[in-house]
């Protein structure tokens, strides 16, 4: 199977993630969009690793998973704190800081 299809898939996933971040209102869903983008990058790393025939990309993907896990911990802590304060996780409600 042509390996370039995996790259198309990764670009597609990345775009879906980016659009999710931009259009969705719930902070958790926005955050899931970011995670999708990170994993799309992982897929690209692994595919390039396969195409180029060296193993660096697979090692990088492992590192990225670890970083993404750490990011989930911090992100959920922040979103959860906001939710307990405001009873809402909508990013449109967090609008006190402007001008």
């Amino acid at each position, binding site marked *: 199977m042509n*390996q*370039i299809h995996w*790259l198309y898939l*990764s670009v597609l996933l*990345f775009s879906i*993630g*980016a659009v999710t*971040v931009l259009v969705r209102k719930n*902070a958790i869903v*926005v*955050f899931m969009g*970011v995670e999708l*983008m*990170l994993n*799309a*990058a992982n897929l*690209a*790393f692994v595919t*390039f*690793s396969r*195409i*180029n*025939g*060296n193993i*660096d*990309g697979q090692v*990088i993907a492992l*590192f*990225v998973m670890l*970083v993404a896990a*750490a*990011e989930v911990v*911090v*992100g959920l*802590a*922040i*979103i959860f*704190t*906001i939710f*307990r*304060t*405001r009873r809402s996780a909508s*990013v449109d409600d*967090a*609008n*006190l*800081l*402007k*001008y």
Partner: protein
Amino acid sequence: MNAPSVDYTAVAPMLAVFVAALVAVLVEAFAPRAQRFIIQVFLATVSIATALIFVVYLATQDTSKTTAGGAVVIDGPALFLQGTILVLALMAVLTMADEASPESSAFTAQASAVPGSVDEARASRLGLVQTEIYPLILFSLVGMLLFPASNDLLTMFIALEVLSLPLYLLCGMARRRRLLSQEASLKYFLLGAFSSAFFLFGAALLYGFAGSVRLSAIAAAIADGGGTTAASAVVGKDGLLLMGIGLLAVGLLFKVGAVPFQSWTPDVYQGAPTPVTGFMAACTKVAAFGALLRIAYVAIPGVRWDWQPVIWVIAALTMLVGSIIAIVQADVKRMLAYSSIAHAGFILVGLLAMDRAGIGAVLFYLAAYGFTTIGAFALVTMVRTSTPDGGVGGEATHLSQWQGLGKRSPWLAAIFTLFLLAFAGIPLTSGFTSKFAVFSAAADQAPWGPGLVVVGVAASAIAVFFYIRVIVLMYFNDSVGDAVTVTRPGALTTLAVGVGVVATIGLGILPSAALGLANSSSVFLP
């Protein structure tokens, strides 16, 4: 497969801070609550000072080297930036640690307690202190030290996350106006994570292009004409390279706060606890520009004709947008945030020069700007509202509350005036020397340099207007009554502000030593 050898002397500054951060976590777990504050402050200041001594030692040894399997490079710019970051972080920790009483602290008693709840009131009544800020600062500092010293894109990504994640949390820990603080934290986190995902995808594309994420390998692949890897042949080398550089730049330009990725800066600077804002504004900017310099000068100088025009436009827009929008700000922290956006534009002008003079100018600018910034934000923490019973309230950041401070608190007004003049780039302050350095480096670069310098000078002229406006407010307007009080600074804040004043004047009047150091540090190890 052998484990890479690590030169422990070369990475000693980072190790010192990292070990202290781990110990600080243990202190949180095991030390009795009453002693935690003093232990944490001691640990933070001593570890930062130790790391600084290691950096000075390494600088005197004058041996540039790569270590840890080539992932980390310790060369002139890396050491200069690490030294700068450590000094600035020490000043920032001093301003954070200085609290006469828990009530005047900038940090919440318990970040997990819901604002306005019984839990929060109880935590305040017990006089609790959130000492977790010190390990978080130290972890963030490890990332900042690694960021400008990373020699491949993976290390750079890890450093980016290690410096960012603790900062997201620190932003949400303000004692007063906690809703604003938590909102700043959420905005910074979502946008920061979004931009680092772009950085990562850019790194993936460059990996496809060069077959390695090592910066020198990317430079070599560009020099070969590219397209030596199988992926380049399959996808097309220009697409991989240019898309990769573009996405990478999104992540880095977000961190430095350049237009069009600046929208988080004013919100986060305003909402975060002021000492954290100072730390973030100074140290993050130094670290992020360090990484940007390394990418631009080590990895992708070969295709600079492709990316320089884009950065030219971004630099011009950043200077103009920062300066113009700052004019209409009514909050002193927001005004300083837009000022920092404008300064990011000025530093980008130096980065574009693509020669040693440009690197030296950027290094000097970062140091000079950092000292002034930390000092300015330390002063902001002292201007407070008064409570009806005569106590000290939250920070009075609205500009109308700063009216007439020149009469009531001449020292504070005089020092803040000095910092504002330095931001504006008035001669005999560090701001003038640094602006002169970046503009003269760029002006030599025909054909595009002179035009950008003209834009920069115009932006500086606009910026002078809003800095002077604050000075006029402080000295020539009547004060608004007793609504505002200026707290007496403790010894630690005084020390930090003093260092800022000495550096701002010193780098303005006698810049040659520091400029010489910056220029001699301006050789990247490829």
